[in-house]
């Protein structure tokens, strides 16, 4: 990887991670106040679905010749930094550990299912 691509990944990941932090805080405060299942990690679910859609779109656009530096910043950097596997896994285990197995299962099914559909929709949109 070139030095410039490396720098763009770092910058994009920083922007994406900060956006994840801000989005999660914003969503979770509102979710906790209004939902009967306030422990459900709705913020991270929303983030992972949105990020999967955008990365699907970028992956489709890449086959139309989107440049490697653009991909380094937006795909690897921003989408990679915005979405997260570790927080999702931690939240799932935490919710299950609090005795709510149904909520943990719902988090697995919803994040995988909606994420797959969102990525496919993004890919499809780019290939239209």
């Amino acid at each position: 990887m070139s030095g410039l691509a490396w720098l763009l990944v770092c910058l994009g990941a920083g922007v994406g991670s900060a956006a994840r932090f801000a989005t999660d805080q914003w969503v979770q405060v509102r979710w906790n106040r209004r939902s009967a299942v306030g422990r459900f990690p709705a913020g991270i679910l929303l983030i992972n679905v949105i990020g999967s859609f955008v990365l699907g779109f970028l992956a489709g656009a890449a086959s139309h010749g989107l440049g490697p530096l653009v991909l380094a910043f937006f795909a690897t950097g921003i989408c990679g930094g915005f979405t997260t596997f570790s927080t999702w896994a931690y939240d799932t285990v935490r919710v299950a550990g609090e005795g709510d197995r149904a909520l943990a299962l719902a988090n697995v099914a919803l994040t995988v299912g909606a994420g797959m559909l969102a990525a496919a929709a993004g890919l499809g949109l780019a290939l239209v």
Partner: protein
Amino acid sequence: MVGSLLIGALLELVVLRRPGQARWRALATTGFCGGFTTWSTFMVGADELIAAHRTDLAIGYLALSVVMGLAAVVVGAGATARIMGPLAPGGEP
């Protein structure tokens, strides 16, 4: 392709050992683990396997990543608890 699945699963296994560390919160979890692991690449990779008519690999990729990722959190949290004593109730990353 099988190699990339294994690398993905192994990387997630290694990284996910950290979420048990409640004391490092924002830097170690939101920043490092959140930035290091990804969901979007996982989803697009699985979709591309389906598009390449390798639904079997896609299902294996999804199942392995999910199961190993969740197991890694349990292992990581357990290891931290063993070393540092149990986490306070409600301790989050």
